[in-house]
């Protein structure tokens, strides 16, 4: 092989992670029957698009960096579906490199499926690699590991060592989070500087559902998940299409989601009547290019919002709104809302003042014990955090004691 050839070499691949195929959406208590199927199949549809994109772009390979499935809810159906999707890629000569993450750790799978020969799964927690060969020529070395158990808490970066320097491209995959990131479970924590020092052309990360470029040189990238599943996973979700040669890497984001999550925050402090509220809600609608799940936070300093809420008016109007828009081809649905009420400055005297004091002083845990001591409840329900409970209780009491 001549040096010139090496320069001309180019690889194309797709980088995706956190597919969570078949995992249910969070925070939806009810859904109209017409939307149920589309919702339930949304992760499948996103996966379909991933496969379609790979074929359309004629990429060399696809990287899936962990959490292909959701452990608690992994169904055979989902695995077969994924297998069939990969089998389709085989027909186009596209390789797939898969690592399992904290949500689909190897030992958790009760019924592993065998994939077609184009699929390469990183077998265990030690960092290993596969060589991607194109036209009998080793072109890229892909490194990675899979979670064997529910968690990997050690830093894996030191284990990544570049092999066989004659191969032009070296790509590392890692499912974990930046050390010191408090928002997420500290899985396979890594330090950015350490990572940057390693001689890899691309760090394909997974685990964090928000699309993030941690670094540009070399690219260290979280592609995010491919389909939002709750109100915090808003906006477009998808994968990266990467074209790489010795001098340059170009990254193009390709949205894959089949349903979009949108969060609306509306200040309705000025709303004084039901009619005004109706107008506010009506203005919420904007035509969309694909189905959309909306969550609304009604922000207000006016306690009229509590009355609207308590009297079921908000719910009724949302129902009407939904009826109006959820039958469109690109339907929209408000599945939940939140009241964000900040009282204007007030001077509480006597009893109300005492009430506020009491809210601060009582033991929430003891108060809620009658329900939480029930094992069944604990098993199925996540406890509301105390701060929120107190805030909501304050709102409730405010509503009752401000009624004239």
């Amino acid at each position, binding site marked *: 092989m001549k040096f010139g050839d090496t320069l001309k070499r180019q690889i194309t691949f797709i980088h995706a992670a956190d597919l969570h195929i*078949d995992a*249910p*959406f*969070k*925070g*939806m*208590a*009810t*859904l109209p029957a017409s939307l*149920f199927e589309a*919702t*339930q199949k949304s992760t499948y549809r996103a996966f379909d698009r991933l496969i379609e994109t790979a074929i359309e772009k004629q990429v060399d390979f696809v990287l899936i960096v962990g959490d292909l499935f959701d452990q608690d*809810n992994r*169904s*055979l*159906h*989902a695995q*077969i579906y994924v297998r069939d999707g990969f089998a389709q890629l085989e027909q186009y000569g596209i390789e797939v490199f898969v690592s399992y993450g904290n949500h689909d750790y190897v030992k958790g799978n*009760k*019924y*592993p499926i065998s994939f077609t020969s184009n699929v390469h799964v990183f077998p265990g927690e030690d960092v290993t690699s596969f060589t991607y060969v194109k036209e009998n020529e080793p072109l890229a070395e892909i490194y990675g590991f899979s979670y064997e158990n529910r968690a990997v808490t050690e830093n894996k970066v030191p284990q990544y060592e570049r092999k066989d320097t004659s191969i032009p491209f070296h790509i590392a995959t890692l499912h974990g989070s930046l050390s010191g990131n408090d928002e997420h479970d500290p899985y396979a924590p890594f330090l950015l500087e350490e990572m940057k020092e390693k001689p890899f052309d691309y760090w394909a990360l997974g685990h964090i559902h928000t699309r993030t470029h941690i670094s540009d040189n070399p690219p260290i990238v979280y592609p995010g998940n491919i389909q939002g599943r709750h109100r915090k996973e808003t906006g477009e979700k998808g994968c990266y299409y990467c074209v790489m040669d010795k001098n340059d890497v170009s990254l193009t984001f390709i949205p894959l989601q089949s349903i979009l999550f949108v969060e609306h925050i509306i200040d309705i402090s000025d709303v004084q009547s039901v009619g005004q509220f109706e107008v506010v809600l009506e203005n919420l609608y904007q035509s969309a290019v694909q189905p959309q799940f909306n969550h609304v936070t009604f922000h207000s300093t006016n306690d009229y919002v509590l009355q609207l809420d308590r009297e079921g008016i908000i719910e009724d109007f949302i129902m009407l709104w939904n009826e109006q828009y959820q039958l469109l081809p690109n339907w929209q649905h408000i599945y939940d809302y939140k009241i964000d009420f900040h009282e204007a400055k*007030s*001077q*509480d*005297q*006597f*009893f*109300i*003042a*005492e*009430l506020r*004091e*009491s*809210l601060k*002083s*009582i033991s*929430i845990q003891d*108060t*809620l014990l*009658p*329900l939480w001591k029930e094992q*069944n*409840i604990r098993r*199925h*329900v*996540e406890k*509301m955090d105390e701060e929120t*409970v*107190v805030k*909501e*209780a304050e709102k*409730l*009491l405010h509503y*009752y*004691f*401000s*009624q*004239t």
Partner: protein
Amino acid sequence: MRFVKADIYGFGKWVDQTFDFSSAQFNAFYGENESGKSTLQQFFLFVMFGLPPKRRQQFESKYSSRFGGALTVEQNGALYTIERTKNGVRILTEDGEAPATFLEELLYGLTRETYESIYAFTALQLSEIQQMKVQDLNDVLFSVGLTGSTSIYKVEKTLEQRLGSLYKARGWKAEINEQLKKVETLAEEVRQLQHRESTYIEKRANVEELKETLQQLEMEQHQIETTLHLKEKHLYACKQKEAYLLLEKERAAYGEIKPFPEEGIARLERLKDRLLPLESERNVLKQQLQQYEKAYEEANATLLSTDYHALLQQFMKQKMTYIDLEKDIAHLTVQLKQIEEGLREKLSEVSLTVEEIEDIILPFHLDQTVQQIKEQASTLQQEEAMLQDEKRTNQTEINRLEKEIKDINDQVIDETFLEERKTANKRYENEQMFYTQHASRQRDIEAFTEKKRTQSNQIMYGAIVVAIICAFIGWNNDMPIFMLFAGILVIIGVGQKLYLQRLWDAVPIDTQHATNKMTEQQYIENEQIIQQQQTIHQELFLLKNELKKVLHADLLLDNKWEAWKTKQTQLQDKIATETFQYPFLQQLEVYVWDTYIRYIREVKEMLQTRSELQNELYTMEHTFAPLEKMRTQLGEHLGVPHVTVQQLEEMYEHEQRSIAKKEQAEREMQERQKALMDIEEKIATYRAEMKELFAIAQVENENEFYTIARENEKIVSLDREMKKYLSPLQLQFSEVELKELFASTESEETLEELVEQLRQEKMQNQTKMNDTHERYVAVQYEVEQLEASGILSEKIYLLEMEKTKLTKWTNEWSVYKVAQAALDEAKKRYQEKYFHAVIDKTSTFFEHITQGKYVTVFAPTEKLPFQVETEDQRRYRVDELSKGTIDQLYVALRLAMNVVMQEKISVPLIIDDAFVHFDTVRSSQMVQLLREISVTQQVILFTCKDYFAKQVQATHILTNVKMKEDVHA
């Protein structure tokens, strides 16, 4: 906070009024009822808290266009002026203006309700304490600082209800419980589905295993089938093999095949077959020839001689003519006889001879003429009868009318007498009219007189009454002039009456009628006679007219008679003309002419027919005679003198048949002779051919020829038989196998056993294979089902949704529970903080007011109202106390609440006449108490009691001046 100054622009009765509170902490207002104390109190509250527009209206001043006012207050050493007018509220500080929201801060967030419940009380509220229970006291305490009617208990109840409907520790009828149940059910379903999916790997392995077993079994089966097939073949070939071997042995006994003509036997047989019919035919022909010769002779013997045969033949030719003629002649003879008879009859009827009739010529128009004459005669006859009838009727009518006229004429009376009567009646009528007019005028005069009489009576009585009055006055008052006046009045009254009376009596009233010259009876009689005569004259006139009409009709009838007579003459002429032309009609009535003529015509037709028939008969008899002669001749020859045509026919037929038979026999004989010659020739040819065949087989006769043929045939048959057994074997077996087959010594029984055994093995193996295959398919299906089933993922989705719902409920429960707990806690703390303090303070104040008579106050409980304890430790319920004491207790309680609360928020205490039932001693105690309070809190007191005002040294005296002005206005 304390009030410094109140400027009233206009509020109720207050206009442009200023009150200054800056000088004293204790401000007492004295004023009688209606002096504006309450309005002033309302003014303070209005400025601080405002009023809704409706309530505000009642305070809008009648005397000023300005409404509202300002209240200057001091807080933390700073002065603020709260100004409230129609335009709203403004807060003025020493530096300028503060925003309206600052008011809330200024008032410590108090509401009007709170203020009123703590810092202001009136005499009206005094009775409340009697009914007060702990709940109410708490209510008062808790309501401090709460908006409007909000009740803590209501909130507690709402929370309790919602919590109860959300979750119950036992039972299912709550949202969380039900939802939990739903979630658990779903979770269980998911678990089961997951378990089912976990068998997937096992099933996959099972599929593979079964697949292998199946392949193994298939191979074994194949081997068994191959062996079985071979052995079965041997078994089937066993019999054929043995048969073949037997035949082989038999064949060995014969040598080679001898010379023999090609298909020798067949050829010989064929020749023999051909000879046999030929010979038998020859015999038949000879017999037939003899038979036909005999038949010929017989037929010839029965035939007639030639002459008579010809005569018979000729007659038979004309046979049909003969029969027809014979029949027609008989028929015609009968017809003629009938006509003759008819003719005789007719002729007797018309009483004319044949010759006369033949002379009569009847033209075709005669019938028409005769018909016309007949019709005319009939018409004329009818007319005659009708005319005679009319003539008779007319005459009768004329007679009747003339008689009636005569009768009426007799009733007519003399004309002059009638005139007299009429004149008399006219006169009578005129008189009657005059009397009627006179009577009417008389009635009017009487009415007028009566009216006047009444008037004069009234005047007279009026004068008498006035006179009496005057007389009385005059008598009483000793005034003679009245007496005199009375007298004059009587005189005038009576005088006018008398005068008028006389005047009316003098008027004569002529009611007498003029004497009548004629009575009414007579008048009516005359009228009747006049009318009668008029009727008679009318009748007479009518009858005369009628008679005139009938006479005229009679004249017209006579004219018609004349016309009829003319027509009659014309008809007679016509009849004469016809009788002249046809004299035979002379003797006959016109009406039968047409019938008679028809008869004559019929006779003429019959005569014609008779002559035609006679001619025809003659012609027929002429043709018939020669035929009859021929028949007679034939009859004589045959010996039958009156031979019939039928007999001749039979004879003829018999003759014909004999001739045919003779000719037939002749033809047959010739044919047979010719055929006999042909057959003899053929027989000779076949004999020669047979000789040739024998020569080839080198034999002399037929027997030897057949022996050689039989031997040859046997050899061929054996060879064929052997081949028949061998060739199917050759097809079934290869050459090697065939050799093996012939070499093998396995008997049929042994083979049969072996085959049966193999078949069993095959069957068992097949069953095994089927079972395995079935299991394979079933497991494979399950695997496919598991792979395809989306139920689990759907259920997981549903579970997640139901969990979310459950979470929603539990969250709500948590919020409500915390709210409830906080409320409980707040209540507890609030009570601890204020309730006991208030009760303690109440005891202190009550003791002070009652000068130590009562020392302790006990708070009411759930069941008991307030209780008080005396020095000597006797307890009384509040309802056992006197009215005055109850008031004192209430005042003590309200003051206690005020004092406790003002430690936190200090605003002026406003009291409105709360001490009305207090005696002087207790009043002074009260004043002392208020003075003590006013050290820390501004007190504003309103009273209408002057002694109390004096005690408190009221600083503001309110008068009723303006009120009074108002009343006068």
